[in-house]
Structures are given as C-alpha cells and as structure tokens.
C-alpha cells in the first residue's frame, strides 16, 4: 500500500506537470480553488489522473469536503487504506 508521502509526491507531480502550478504553491493547506487556481473543469481532469494512478473513482458527494491539497491526499490515502 502507498504511504501518504508517496501519494503527496504523485499528486504534487501531476499538479506541476499537467496543471503547470508552481511548486512553491503546493502546501498542504493550499486551497485547491482559491490558492491553486483550479476550477470545475480541472476537477474532471484530476479525477481521470487519480483513477489512472490509484484506481480510485471519485464520488461526487464525498468530494464536497475536499477543499485543500491535504484533504485530497487524505481522501486518496483513506480510500487506499480501506481496500
């Protein structure tokens, strides 16, 4: 099973590579929308990458609590832990 650090690394990597977000903005408490500038269309692409990397399909109703970068990593970590 992937450790939290590994998940953070993968997520940060695709935010830099795919979404061209500056690395110094990728702090755990960074708000996905307000701080990282992600918008509704970007979440569609994030869902595709997360499914590809972790085999996890987002459930819309659970995503309402995912506000920060750390929330996103925790969401994936907890999902993988339950598998």
């Amino acid at each position, binding site marked *: 099973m992937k450790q939290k650090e590994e998940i953070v690394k993968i997520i940060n990597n695709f935010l830099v590579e795919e979404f061209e977000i500056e690395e110094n903005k990728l702090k755990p408490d960074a708000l996905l929308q307000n701080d990282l500038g992600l918008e509704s*269309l*970007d979440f*569609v*692409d994030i*869902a*595709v990458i997360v499914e590809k990397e972790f085999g996890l399909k987002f459930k819309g109703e659970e995503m309402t609590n995912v506000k920060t970068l750390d929330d996103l990593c925790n969401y994936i970590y907890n999902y993988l832990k339950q598998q």
Partner: protein
Amino acid sequence: MNRVVITGIGIYSTIGKNIAEVKDSLYNGKSGIVLDAERKKFGYQSGLTGKIERPQLKGVLERRSRISMPEHAEYAYMSTVEALKAANMSQEYLDNNIVGIIFGNDSSTPPVIEAVDIIREKKNTFSVGSASVFKSMNSSVTMNLSVVFKLKGINFTLSGACASGSHSIGMGYFLIKHGYQDCIICGGSQEINLFCVGSFDALGAFSNRESEPQKASRPFDKNRDGLVPSGGAATVILESYESAVKRGAPILAEVAGYGFSSDGKHLSVPDIDGPVRAINMSVKEAGINPNQIDYINAHATSTPLGDANEAQALDSVFGAYKPLVSSTKSMTGHEMWMAGASEIVYSVIMMQNSFVAQNINFEEPDEVTSKLNIANKRIDKEINMFLSNSFGFGGTNSSLIIKKFK
C-alpha cells in the same frame, strides 16, 4: 447603410506563417505541397497534402486555452493575433468594446476519434477528460478564440463546406453594413492531419501526381487530375468605416459586395448556373460593372470538372472582357474551410503590392479554360478591385468583391 472596411489581415498557411512570408511566396510562386508517406501507409489513395508546422503556444496561452484547442484553432489563434496587431486593436479595446467573431470551419476530426476510442476501451465517458468536447465541436475555433480574446459581440461558426471562410466574411459584411455590429473578426480554419480528409480521399478527388508533389495542384491546366488537400487559418478583421476612422485604424481595403447561391442539384458535381448567380449577385450588390474587376481569385481547385465549370461561369459573366484570373490553390493546395478567407488575404496582399500571383503549373489550357485570361506568370499590375470565388459540396457558392479604399 455602413461602408465595411478591412482593417487587419493575418495568415498561418502552408506557404508562410505570416503576411510577410506569404507575400514572398505569392510573389515567387512557391508551393506548400508535399507527399506524406504516413498517409500512404494509412491507406490514402493520394498522399499529397499541404504541410504546416503547429505553433508552439506553451508560455503564450494559459493551459486551459491550450488543451481546449484543436490544431486548426491554434492556426486561427496565430492568424488572429497577427490581424489584430495589423488593425491596431489591443486587448484593452476588445475588453471595452463590442467585437464579434465568425469563422468558417467544417470539421475537427482527431478529437472526435480519440474520445470515442477512449470510451470504447474504458467503457466510461469520464476518462475522456475535460477538454475533448471543446476540441471536437465544429465551433471550436470561435468558442476558444472568443474566450481567449474576451469578445463580447456575435459569436458563431459558419459551416458551408469549401465556401465556409468566404461566407463568414460575407455574413460579417452584412451584419456591419446593416448596423448590427461595428467590428467582427472573420476568418476560416482548416485542420491538416492524418484523419481529417480520409473520407474525402475516398471519392478519388485528389491528385495522383505523387512523383511531382509541387506540380500536382494545377488549376485550369489541361493535365490537372484532382485537388491537393491543405489547411491553416486566415483572419480578416471587418469594421464599419465609422469605427475604423474613430479608432484611427489603418484601412486596407473595402468590401464592395457579397453574393451567394445554392446550385440545388448535386452533392459533389460542380455547377455553372449556381456560381453565375452568386457572381452576378456580388456584382449587383457592389453596384459595379463586371469590367471594373481587375483580378479574379478563382475557386479552381485543380479538379477536371470543377475548373472547367468555373471557367464557363466566368466566361458567361465576363464575356469578351477578360480580367486576369489565377488560383492561388496552385501553390497552397485546397485549403477548404479556410480557403474563402485565406484567398481574400492573398488577394489583399496582391492588391497592396500591385501584382497578380502566378497560377503556377498552368502550362497549357484545355478547350474550356482557354476562354480565360489566366496568369501563367506573375504580373506586376495595379489591382483596384478583385472578385474571389468559393464553392462547396452541396452546391453552396460564395462570391466576394473587394476594392481599394478610396
């Protein structure tokens, strides 16, 4: 009624990536045609095509814009940036005024194929991601560019087969003439990729002169054997005379008339009567006599019947007065959805620089094309007024008359 003027032109084509390069190619009769081995391997009957490099837009456009643009929208972005600059039209102006956009376009092939391939493989749609729908729609160019340039006026794509680009300028002209808009970014775009003209190639309409790619597109020549598909994008900024003067914009030319018609006959067989009606309508709309036209940029694509029928149509309208005729498709190949707009750009370049580009590869006329005065070499000559024809599948015809601004 407003006078409608052209205040900016831009081009990204197989014979040059900007106005200066294209002017040089037109002046020197340079061809943009190659033989693409990949097309032959894929199963095309003809591997002949125009060749173009995709612009590098990383660092120029933000990610969302880039990933949502198909190839031909990138070309259209390039030609539009050039045209806006020529028109002295800043982003600040676009932010604070009502400027519209109408582009001719009639396909966006790879994004459709790629999305369906993903859905078939994954058995779900969400894996397609967010950008595919914006790339795959026919209105992709106007959809994307209206957001990139934050346009607030009319915003749609016009699909009229190989007359799309010409009709887009005609529609823009009417909207400004009748006072609905002050300024519209018009143009045409055409994809060039492995998939986009496979079904067109199926008709056997492309030239098979693969041993001499740059001699394959030979409109009006006796030994023509079919068209060569090509592409890119062209932008023509139309503006009311009043708006252009108010802005202190350069006025490059004036749109004098637009004529249109439908053959009402056949999907693919070109007609004579339909084009004649479109040309006559443009002449009437311009309020001129045909003998005021100095140059005709013909639709002629290098197909045996299409060129012959256009020659008949021109002969029937112009008779003994034989204005100079050339088809720039001899150099560019057939730029299809883009052609009607690019050929206005090419002809305005000729008008500005007082020459008629050579109809390259025109070596010998046939019985019908001998009725025309075809420029078999570059001719240095003042052009005060020109006619540009565009015809398309389904028998859609568009004729535009452009004159020097006086």
